[in-house]
């Protein structure tokens, strides 16, 4: 890399990383063309998965190939793709080392390495439970299994925290209930929703929406159950709280951890979450390094929408630093998680750092909005639909020093 060139490296090609690279390429197009700036995107995988799509693969039989695209097809031609995972990130030396040993020096970095479902954190969980957070294939396995299920006790829920997409365990319960009803075997299935939290959904206003719906559908709720271990032979789980729970079919969201590269680089906490400023997205102690999306330890939901909005803030801050060196954009913590509640209805979990989550009832129109977003997802990665996000979300960041 030339010394006169400003090198920006984005590590990770999920929602946040892809959007960051594309936004930087768009806003710095002139500087990229003159060679003043280079934007590099370091990929952990050549495939990009629309992860919210796991739900419909697992519980509605969607074709898993429909939620996967080649990352190359989603990235601006002004972004230099590096199709080799990062092995180590040295924030002090400003160097990213790839698995081949090749090193890349950066002036700015955005770390968007996501989170990793970690069933191994709980003895027996990986062998005993199906899950829809790891891959399209694993999600498809659930669909294959439930099609053959003729009755018994299904336990679905959260094995441990944290995990990405907070509504997804509840959504799984609603869609399973729908599925068994459609098959006409619901009366042969006992359903239990199991959670470490004090209520069916962690944020109380939305839990008030979920609780009566679960009751109406005959879905029992077990709270304060942090799974300690699972015995696949006995088909029984024990909790850290000292309780036990039996099952015939187990579908659990595993606890998540940070990415391997974060753990190996020692730039996160013990579980690999990167400490960052919840507003500017700057990594604590560094002015030229940002972390976004699931990779951070900031107190906000780990979701695609969050990663998207944080990508806007981080890339704006880098563009601003290159152009003006003084403006600082600040993300306001806006979340907007689609929340499917069965029978073709959905709600959204909406809040921000200053606005507590509010109660929103499910409706058909919100379901249509969720499905429309799924269709538009690939286009949102280019940043070309951010005007629409802006109209819907309103302000998601403020600017200081303009």
């Amino acid at each position: 890399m030339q010394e006169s060139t400003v090198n920006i490296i984005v590590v990770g090609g999920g929602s946040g990383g892809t959007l960051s690279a594309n936004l930087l390429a768009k806003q710095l197009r002139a500087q990229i063309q003159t060679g003043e700036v280079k934007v590099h995107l370091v990929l952990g995988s050549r495939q990009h998965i629309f992860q919210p799509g796991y739900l419909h693969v697992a519980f509605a039989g969607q074709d898993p190939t429909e939620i996967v695209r080649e990352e190359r097809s989603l990235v601006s031609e002004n972004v230099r793709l590096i199709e080799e995972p990062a092995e180590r990130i040295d924030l002090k030396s400003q160097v990213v080392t790839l698995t081949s040993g090749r090193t890349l020096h950066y002036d700015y970095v955005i770390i968007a390495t996501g989170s990793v479902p970690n069933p191994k954190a709980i003895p027996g969980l990986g062998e005993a439970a199906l899950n829809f957070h790891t891959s399209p294939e694993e999600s498809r396995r659930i669909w294959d299994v439930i099609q053959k299920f003729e009755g018994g006790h299904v336990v679905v829920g959260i094995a441990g925290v944290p995990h990405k997409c907070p509504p997804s365990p509840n959504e799984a319960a609603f869609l399973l209930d729908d599925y068994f009803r459609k098959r006409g075997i619901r009366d042969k299935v006992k359903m239990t929703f199991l959670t470490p939290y004090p209520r069916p959904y962690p944020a109380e206003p939305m839990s008030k929406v979920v609780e009566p719906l679960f009751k109406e559908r005959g879905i029992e709720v077990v709270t304060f159950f942090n799974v300690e271990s699972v015995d696949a032979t006995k088909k029984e789980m024990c909790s850290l709280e000292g309780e036990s729970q039996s099952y015939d079919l187990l579908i659990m969201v595993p606890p998540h951890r940070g990415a391997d590269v974060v753990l190996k680089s020692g730039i996160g906490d013990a579980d690999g979450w990167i400490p960052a400023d919840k507003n500017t997205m700057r990594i604590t102690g560094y002015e030229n390094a940002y972390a976004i999306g699931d990779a951070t330890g900031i107190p906000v939901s780990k979701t695609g929408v969050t990663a998207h909005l944080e990508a806007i803030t981080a890339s704006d801050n880098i563009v601003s630093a290159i152009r003006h060196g003084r403006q600082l954009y600040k993300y306001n913590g806006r979340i907007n998680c689609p929340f499917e509640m069965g029978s073709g209805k959905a709600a959204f979990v909406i809040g921000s750092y200053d606005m507590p989550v509010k109660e929103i009832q499910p409706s058909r129109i919100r379901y249509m909005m969720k499905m429309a977003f799924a269709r538009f997802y690939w286009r949102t990665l280019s940043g070309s639909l951010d005007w629409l996000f802006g109209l819907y979300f309103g302000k998601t960041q403020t600017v200081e020093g303009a």
Partner: protein
Amino acid sequence: MCPGPITDLFRAYRNSNIGDVIELLATDPAAKSDTEAWTKRSGNEIIAVIDEKDYIRIQIRVVKKGK
């Protein structure tokens, strides 16, 4: 914000040993009642709830974990 400080409590609990003290700093007003409900159910102990200027400090002693 969801899922809030209770997530941090559970992360710490999973990695704790009997006798450890977990200190939870929270701005979320639900943190106190959620922690009280959890300790009651799990058999663990709240040592202190301290109102600081902008947050509450909850100290929990781990006295029970697993069967």
